[in-house]
């Protein structure tokens, strides 16, 4: 039973957990920023009129969405060195997270852009706005209201996905639990502590989601 649950060891390992907590935050933030960039780019390619660009983006998005992140991670981790590309674990991890989330971001942004009624675009065209101006002043400001909630949802998924980076031995929250398991054989203490830290991030992001939704509704009225 769990009556041997040892809080003192958790306290002893707290510095490790805190530094790993920061690592998880940092890795997910890097992945989020990167995936926003990749997502905007891929979405722009996907909805462009050029068939080549559109097809390329389609292949990228669908192949990412149809394969697990873990396989993509191993693909880069074991695959890139055989091409002569040697990268640190952190770079590989962020690369995998970015490319994985980027595909989902692209779809989220596309749904947002397509939710703008066609009349808006036509009005913008007849006002003489070019492609960039249409995006900047007409489509994106409206699309943000539609895309923000699923984007925050994707941020939550990203934080959880970053746990997989422990499997390529990056020091982050799940890895801290693994270290505690292997050094002291205390899996309950280790992984439950990791879970609590993840829940902290989750509830914070959930709170941001409800808060922003209230804000957005307020702004629209």
């Amino acid at each position, binding site marked *: *039973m*769990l009556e041997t649950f040892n809080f003192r060891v958790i306290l002893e390992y707290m510095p490790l957990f805190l530094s790993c907590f920061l690592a998880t935050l940092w890795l997910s933030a890097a992945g989020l920023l990167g995936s926003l960039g990749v997502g905007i780019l891929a979405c722009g390619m996907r909805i462009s009129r050029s068939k080549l660009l559109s097809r390329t983006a389609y292949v990228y998005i*669908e*192949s990412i*969405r*149809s*394969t*697990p*992140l*873990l*396989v*993509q991670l*191993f*693909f*880069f*981790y*074991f*695959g*890139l*060195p*055989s*091409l002569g590309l040697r990268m640190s674990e952190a770079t590989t991890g962020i690369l995998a997270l970015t490319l994985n989330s980027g595909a989902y971001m692209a779809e989220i942004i596309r749904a947002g852009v397509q939710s703008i009624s066609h009349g808006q675009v036509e009005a913008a065209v007849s006002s003489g706005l070019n492609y960039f101006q249409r995006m900047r002043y007409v489509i994106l400001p409206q699309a943000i209201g539609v895309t923000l909630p699923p984007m925050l949802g994707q941020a*939550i998924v990203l934080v*959880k*996905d*970053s*746990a*997989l980076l*422990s*499997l390529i031995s990056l020091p982050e*929250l*799940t890895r801290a*639990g*693994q270290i505690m*398991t292997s050094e002291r054989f205390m*899996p*309950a203490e280790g*992984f*439950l502590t*990791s*879970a609590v830290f*993840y*829940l902290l*991030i*989750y*509830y914070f992001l*959930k709170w941001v989601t409800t808060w922003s939704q209230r804000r957005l509704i307020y702004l629209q009225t």
Partner: protein
Amino acid sequence: MWGIYLEQLVHSLPFFLKGLWMTIAVSGLSLIMGTVIGFIWGIIRGSRSRIAKAVIGAWVDIIRGTPFLVQIFIIFFIMPEFGIQLEAFPAAVIALTNLASCFICEIVSAGIQAVPWGQKEAATSTGLNWFQQLRYVIMPQSMRVVLPPLVGQYVLLIKDSSVVSAIGVSDVTRVGWLTVQRIPQGLLVFGLVALLYFVICYPLIQLSSILEKRMSAGYTRGKE
């Protein structure tokens, strides 16, 4: 160089197919059980019992807020402390079933809420009991909202099943990981693993988007 590796890879293809079978077994079992449990929870959550709602809601939050990898480690390592020795396979199925039921519960309760309240009142005044209301009025209508994301969720869960390789279930990801130790061509080996997942997931994603179009067809036309 590549030719030799390719030949070795072709020779170990039976292992990959075995792994694929394991992936299908784990995710198939969990999806079936998870769907049943998820529907039950979703229906309870869509009902008006406050306590049941709060308990299920809190549990769903905990499961949605922690990584699947951590959940599976907790189940695999902590169950023995309660005197339940689990092999890797049942631990994987329990963890994935739990995950599936939580996500499906969310989808189902959203679907039930999408059915207008008047429908329920009408059903009550027609004299249908609780089960009949659910069976003949609420569920058939909520299916329109439930089905497309449900199939999408199945895809996510099949992909999540790759994580069970971390506790040693010899699914197709694990086979890839073992093979890459012998054949040091990560691109080739995990390209093959990715292809095997793609073959399962891509048709399901297409099915989900077809369902979405078909289910919303009559309704968007009505609006315009």
